[in-house]
């Protein structure tokens, strides 16, 4: 199960293995990983094999984040509000993958409805990092990242509203790809913040990510924001010919002198990133330093909080226990709804709902919500300006490797906030964005991110694939470290 999709497909075709064997192995690993890291809400023990066709995905097992609606299979969004919810329809992205013969074997734990970046707020408990169980996977696609890194299967589906695919990928030493907004239908994805939500994939190499998204994407009459990408062939367009491509990094996020009290981890992380830029240049890619206004960069996190909380509070207003979910038996509708929501949402989500409500109130809307929209536009314009000159922006992910679970609430160096949160710009603009592993700090993986302009997914993946080949971290499986 630690092989890539193309290899597995070849073995299936050559009769070296069968879909049944792969599924059996994947299920066995699922139980082991569940035992060790608590990555799954549901393990689909009765998963059925599929016929092996010429389709690369046929017969190969995969995992699904638990915010994808799966017909006849429990879909909780890792929330008590939906702890018994068994949908009667499949998400469009899944229907597409099933047509390619893909076989789901589990539903992965996430931060409740995608809110939270730690993998610690799901209703079934905390997901542990397979490299170091004292650390988090980051979130919200924590279970998917954990399982792929642990080698349960070659890929798992994720969703990304701020960095929910791309950050856990970095913390788990794998690839996380969020395509352009609307390339994959969101029909059947439990919404967090609809203007930012994007379906995507976690895998162990860029080729696999491309193959999977090729299978998920497509215009969907049920999602008005989806678009026709039938002329985009992600996997086929990976040539790794990158000579003359142009990348830029943003000095304010990458140069150590911009941080007041940089930790050793941050220093190493940025140092590693800069060394990697040199390796990238050797591929014939031009790498240039660029500047973006610090004030604007420092606003990223606030813009994200305001917009995502506002949309989330509305998106999750359907969770009242009246139509689905464990209904409260009260005398009037107000207490029926209130008790359901009070009991079943975690404190973190409730805080976000309050923020979302507050910024949408008539008296606050201009100051917070509309201003956030304005700054969102400014940030998108700033990135689009870079895309006029460069194929993509390359940046380090986060301020180091996975954080400790204990003490994870430690207040971060304020000056590192923008570095922690810059991936959210990818959601503000709907940009294609991919994280790949770019090294180790204290034996723990770290990653870098490449983000390009909308609809330019082929170019972004091709660059990522070439860079991935220049590094030594392709297809890595988590090796548990012990620092004690």
């Amino acid at each position, binding site marked *: 199960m630690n092989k890539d999709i193309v290899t597995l497909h070849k073995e299936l075709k050559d009769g070296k293995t069968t879909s049944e064997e792969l599924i059996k192995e994947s299920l066995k690993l699922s139980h082991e990983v569940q035992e060790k890291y608590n990555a799954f809400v549901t393990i689909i023990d009765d998963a059925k094999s599929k016929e092996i066709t010429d389709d690369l995905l046929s017969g190969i097992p995969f995992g699904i984040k638990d915010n*994808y*609606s799966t017909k006849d299979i429990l*879909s909780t*969004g890792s929330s008590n509000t*939906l702890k018994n*919810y068994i*949908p*009667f*329809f499949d*998400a469009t992205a899944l229907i597409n993958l099933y047509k390619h013969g893909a076989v789901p074997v589990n539903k992965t734990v996430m931060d409740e409805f995608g809110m939270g970046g730690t993998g610690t707020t799901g209703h079934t408990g905390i997901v542990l990092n397979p490299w170091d169980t004292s650390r988090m996977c980051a979130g919200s696609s924590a279970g998917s990242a954990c399982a792929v890194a642990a080698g349960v299967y070659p890929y798992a589906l994720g969703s990304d509203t701020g960095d929910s695919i791309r950050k856990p990928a970095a913390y788990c030493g794998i690839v996380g790809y969020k395509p352009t907004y609307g390339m994959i239908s*969101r*029909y*059947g*994805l*439990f*919404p967090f*913040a*609809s*203007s930012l939500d994007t379906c995507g994939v976690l895998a162990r190499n860029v080729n696999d990510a491309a193959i999977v998204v090729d299978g998920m994407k497509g215009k969907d*009459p*049920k*999602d*008005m*924001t989806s678009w026709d990408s039938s002329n985009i062939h992600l996997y086929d367009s990976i040539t790794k010919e990158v000579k003359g491509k142009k990348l830029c990094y943003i000095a304010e996020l990458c140069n150590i002198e911009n941080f007041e009290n940089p930790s050793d981890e941050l220093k190493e992380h940025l140092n590693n990133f800069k060394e990697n830029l040199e390796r990238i240049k050797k591929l014939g890619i031009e790498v240039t330093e660029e500047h973006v206004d610090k004030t604007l960069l420092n606003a990223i996190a606030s813009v994200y909080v305001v917009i995502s909380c*506002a*949309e989330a*509070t*509305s998106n*999750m*207003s*359907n*969770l*009242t226990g*009246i*139509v*689905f979910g464990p209904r409260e038996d009260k005398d009037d*509708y*107000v207490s029926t*709804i209130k008790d359901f929501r009070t009991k079943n949402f975690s404190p973190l989500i409730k805080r976000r709902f309050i923020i979302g*409500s507050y910024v*949408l*109130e*008539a008296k606050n*809307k201009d100051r917070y*919500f509309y201003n956030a929209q304005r700054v969102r536009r400014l940030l998108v314009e700033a990135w689009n300006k870079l895309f006029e000159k460069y194929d993509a922006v390359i940046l380090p992910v986060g301020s180091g490797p996975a954080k400790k679970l204990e003490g994870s609430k430690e207040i971060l160096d304020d000056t590192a906030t923008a570095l922690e949160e810059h991936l959210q710009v990818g959601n503000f603009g709907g940009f294609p964005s991919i994280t790949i592993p770019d090294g180790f700090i204290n034996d723990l993986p770290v990653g870098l991110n490449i983000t390009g302009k909308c609809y330019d997914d082929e170019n972004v993946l091709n660059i990522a694939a070439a860079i991935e080949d220049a590094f030594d971290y392709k297809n890595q499986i988590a090796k548990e470290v012990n620092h004690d």
Partner: protein
Amino acid sequence: MTKYKAVIGLEMHCEITTTKSKVFSSAKNSYEVDPNVNIAPLDMGFPGTLPVVNKEAVRKALMVSMILNCKQPEYLYFERKNYYYPDLPKGYQLTQETKPAPVGIYGKLKYFVNGEEKEALINNLHLEEDSASMEHFSDVSLIDYNRSGVPLLELVTEPCFHNADETVAFLETMRNIYRYADISEADSKKGHIRCDVNISIMDESLEEKEENFGTKVEVKNVNSFSAVREVINYEIKRQIALKEEGTYDEMPQQTRRWDEATMQTQFMRSKVDAIDYKYFIEPNIPKYKITDSLLEEIRKDIPVLADERKEKYINEYQLSIDDAKNLTKEKNISDYFDKLISLDIKPKDASNYVNTIILGSCNKLDIDIKDLFITPEILAELIKLIYDGKLSKNQAKNALYKAVDTNKSPLDIVKEEGMEQIDNDEEIIKMIDEILSNNSKMVEDYKNGRTNVINFFLGQVMKETKGKVNPAKAMEILKSKLD
């Protein structure tokens, strides 16, 4: 002498009943069926479902916007109106606010009150979705999601009415427009139309502008035109009484509800407790460019409306004003009449039949003209028998009356009763020859000068044919035979 005048504004909700599917889902747009059968996952707010705008509903909304002389927006947006209620499964209603602009803004419409022309000012028209419907019992409430997501047009007027007559006349005009333009059945009995009425009073001597207006009282969910009339009259009286008592200025801006049982309005909440709906643009619906060519296309499709038809009936068809008015009062009547015209019935005849026997019969049977089994096609065929001299007007009338009584086609009755006149000359000649040869003595009498016996022969012919022969024709033949 009245010292006060009332200032009244309306929010009129009318469901679009003529689209195939709901406004944001593919479920059938029909709720007059068994509960909870016309539902798509979105209509119950299932997680992960997304809205898809129904283009037909948008076209119809834009058409009404044009009829109301509103300005149409450059881009179409929808907004979420967030609040919790069991009939609102998503926890928000998809609607349109004034910013960005809804399907129509700042319009005006001519209407008539007792023959006097007035102009209503439209603040805006927006397209939204209806909620589910609920039935409350002593120990349970039942929810029917068939209505959830039915397209709804909300029309907001300026405070431009002054009494119940004006307000109701405007509502009737709007109902006609909805019917004539094939937007809605607009039947308040079926719940297609619901109104909120805003009423305040002010000193009559003051100029009618906002700073002189009194305190606005909104009466919610007034669901028939007669109730609108009652509410307005009740509120004007109530508010004048407060003025007279000197307590009007203490009355807070408020929302009230109409209680049909007591025929009174009741306090619901004051403005201070107004709900903050936290509107924001629905991110799942990309903004949609409304092109000039789309608007032109829709404009071409606007059907001939009541006033235009009325003018045509008077000027082109030479009908009396009263007849034209009666014929255009309801779209279905006008459609029936127009169908007769298209079947080559003379306008005067068509008007006579529709305004007398046909509408009389509908009244008697208590049905809508479109449900009458005597269709325009059947009536036209009957009238044509008269045109062809095969049936007398009286016979036609009798057949129609009998048809209504027996629920049979008047054409069948004509046949069964043998009403149709014999116009086959040979047949008549043959019959007359027989009568004459059987009465040779009287033929001789005639020839000897007793010419009045010809009436006996005619009587015989009519008897033999049970009156199916045109008497003038029979007489003509008799004369030619005898002379």
